[in-house]
């Protein structure tokens, strides 16, 4: 596991997503209202477009989610699993905040 510094903590606003480039991977970073950080693949598996970071953050029955802005499929931020199509999932990455810097892990 290698950790990569990506941005400062405030660069990921609450209930919002941003995209990052981590060793050639496009990653979507999110922060939920209870201040938890998540990192998932940025490419929408249904359309192939790199747009997941631009989706709306919310919850479905308590599970934190993001909905793809392309065709609105909803993904769990925790597992990357598509809640509308359990066969499909987004890759997830370890993410942490150290000394005000957001870091994403790759293996």
């Amino acid at each position, binding site marked *: 596991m290698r950790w990569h510094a*990506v*941005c400062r903590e405030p*660069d*990921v*606003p*609450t*209930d*919002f997503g*941003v*995209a*990052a*480039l*981590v060793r*050639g991977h*496009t990653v979507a*970073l999110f922060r*939920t*209202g209870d201040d938890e950080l998540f990192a998932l693949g940025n*490419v929408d*598996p*249904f*359309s*192939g*477009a*790199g*747009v997941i970071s*631009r*989706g*709306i*953050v*919310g*919850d*479905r*029955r*308590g599970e*934190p*989610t993001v*909905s793809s*802005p*392309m*065709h*609105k*499929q*909803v993904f769990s931020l925790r597992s990357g699993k598509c809640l*509308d*199509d359990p066969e499909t999932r987004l890759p997830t990455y370890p993410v942490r905040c150290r000394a005000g810097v957001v870091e994403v892990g790759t293996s």
Partner: protein
Amino acid sequence: MNKTLVIIGHGMVGNRLVEEIRERDPAENWRIVVLGEEPHAAYDRVGLSSYMTESTAEELSLLTSGTQGDPRVELRTGVGATDIDRVTRTISTTNGETLHYDALVLATGSRPFVPPVPGSELEGCHVYRTLEDLDGIRSAAVPGTDGVVVGGGLLGLEAADALRALGMRAHVVEVAPRLMPVQVDEGGGAVLARLVGDLGLEVHTGVATSGAHAGEHGGLGSVTLTDGTEIETGLLVFSAGIRPRDELAESAALPLGERGGFLVDGNCRTEDPRVWAIGECAAVRGQCHGLVAPGYRMAAAVADQLTERGEAEFPGADGATKLKLVGVDVASFGDAHGASEGALEVVYANNAEGTYAKLVLDDDASTLLGGVLVGDASAYDTLRPLTGTALPGPPEQLLLPAAQAGGPSTGVLPDEATVCSCHNVRKTDITEVIASGAAEDVAGVKSCTKAGTGCGSCVPMLKNLLDEAGVATSDALCEHFSQSRSELFEIVRATGITTFSRLIAEYGAGRGCDICKPAVASILASSVNSHILDDEQAGLQDTNDRFLANMQRNGTYSVVPRVPGGEITPDKLITLGQVATEFGLYTKITGGQRIDMFGARVEHLPEIWRRLVDAGFESGHAYGKALRTVKSCVGTDWCRYGVQDSVTMAIRLETRYRGLRAPHKIKAGVSGCARECAEARSKDFGVIATERGWNLYVGGNGGFSPRHAELLASDLTNEELIRLIDRFLMFYIRTAERLQRTAGWIESFDNGLEHVREVVVEDSLGIAAELEAAMARHTENYTDEWRAVLDDSEKLSRFVSFVNAPDSPDPTISFTEERGQIRPEPIDLPMPVAQPGQDQVAEEVSA
């Protein structure tokens, strides 16, 4: 394509089989060769009579462009089959070819039955089956003279109506004591005879045709009946039933049913596992079916087997019929003649209105067995699915016209009742997709269940099922808010709440989602007049609003500057061209009289806007649920027909309402005269010039369910017009539900447009001044959303490709070139799957 399927016969059912297999065989395992004996490809034989009056052969054609362009399908018209050799698996054709098959489907249809009447070979005697037959009848018809149709069944009445349409006095000769003896009982037949008699047909029942006799020129001159009647006529049409086209059975050594037709099992398979028969030529378990709906179901069953979806059975058919014959409604279903033991009948006849209805019940009057309806068949849609089930109420209630108020009732149907008989869809199949949220409207039900995609007669019932489900389900916005959009609007207005987080904390639950967040953002934008990307609002917006541009399929955006009224200077056109060239954008003219520039990367958007804003452009809100364009014709300035200055009015209106956030997009148009070149009546509000001022139309739209706008007020001055539009739009914004266009909103009131007129024109609720004041606030506080981003470094910071590499292009985006412009590089993925319960229909795709 490693296997060959040969279909003999390209009628309605043969054609349906081709379509069904094309749909189910994406791997293209089958090459399909279709032989059609007629010179035309398949056409709508059910609608054959309309060929006499309004339709052309092209209009009746069932051949889709998809089939025509499909390399899997080889259609040979004008070619029949002469022999089948099942040992070598080959077919000989009328043009001397030999075709090999791996699977063979016989869909040869029927031939007209010509009763043994002496003289039936004379010139002037016709049958009624093909387009060529009708051409022959048309050229033989002499208006003002008599014509005779032998056969008073379904087809006979159709043929008689065709003669009537050709200006002839039509006689119908039926051996049975009444018309339509198979479908209708004695009472119904009497009403039917009277109704068609009123329409000018001469009905002869209980008699046969005894002879056709030559006239002076050797052709037909007269027809005699067994009761001694002699009719002078040069035109006789035999329409006395059909017989299956089964003559290929001999060379193929295939068994026939007792009354003809290729004998097949419940899977429509002959004794040879490679050979099937479908449609009128098939004797399924010995029985032939002469209607198209059972034929279509046979085609579906065989397509399932050929594409290895299992041993699909033809589910059977009951011969239920509903049709309009000679302008008279006739329907029959189930045990129409009360043949079941102990059957009871309930009859309701109204001689004054010319209606007859009969229900056949079982011996304790609790179960519906069948029925006959003549003159008014509106109860058919409710009654037919009830066949075989317990009656939901007193029988007369189901028959009386009052029971039909508001269309066919579906609430009384049991869950297992068949609603769509073309595709065999039960009520429960439909209510399930509605309850799961997979279908939100008739179109959704159609795509999920196929119901309503055959003959279409059950579509009113689908609508009712949706309405009934709508009553049962709450109008909660989503799992986070139990309120509807209009209720939330009132809460925001009354409490003065200005943030989503406070609204959900006090009136909702959870953290929100992609349904409630944009809806609340729109309410706040209409109420608070702040920038839509201020503070936490940015995270509420759909991607289009969040980036003030329209997302396209590869994640890039399109940019549409406002061009009020469609009027633009050459200098501004040049700027658009320069910006598009510089940023490598694809350009296209929109339907709303503006120019769309596609393929902009998110990190380029601010620079593109800066160039546009410097040249005097502003955001066109193509991305928002907001006012889009006010389209106009050129009006009195240039047009020699114009009566008012439509361009100036369009610019004034577009400038007044630009940036107005609403439950859905708003489109408008202004036409300078009644010729209506701006197509204003297809808009949410449309203004059409009169000699004395302006007429205001509301509630129109194009799109999925097109509607024409209806007149709200006439001959208005400029000021009156603007005042009414102010009130109309603000009333809509306050009270409409999420994603409801003005048409649906108007319909949602009990009195529809009348209610809107009372509130907007007559101020019946006393809120007109308040609505006008709200619009005045919007107009005063308008700012250009693009410029506001350019002036705000924090907002600008979000327009980057990657937070840690702001200028690196996204590696997932690439383009090819076509016709001198860029196109998104196709992405190698399975087709995007439509998501149940989502709004892609309502999503914005254009300006």
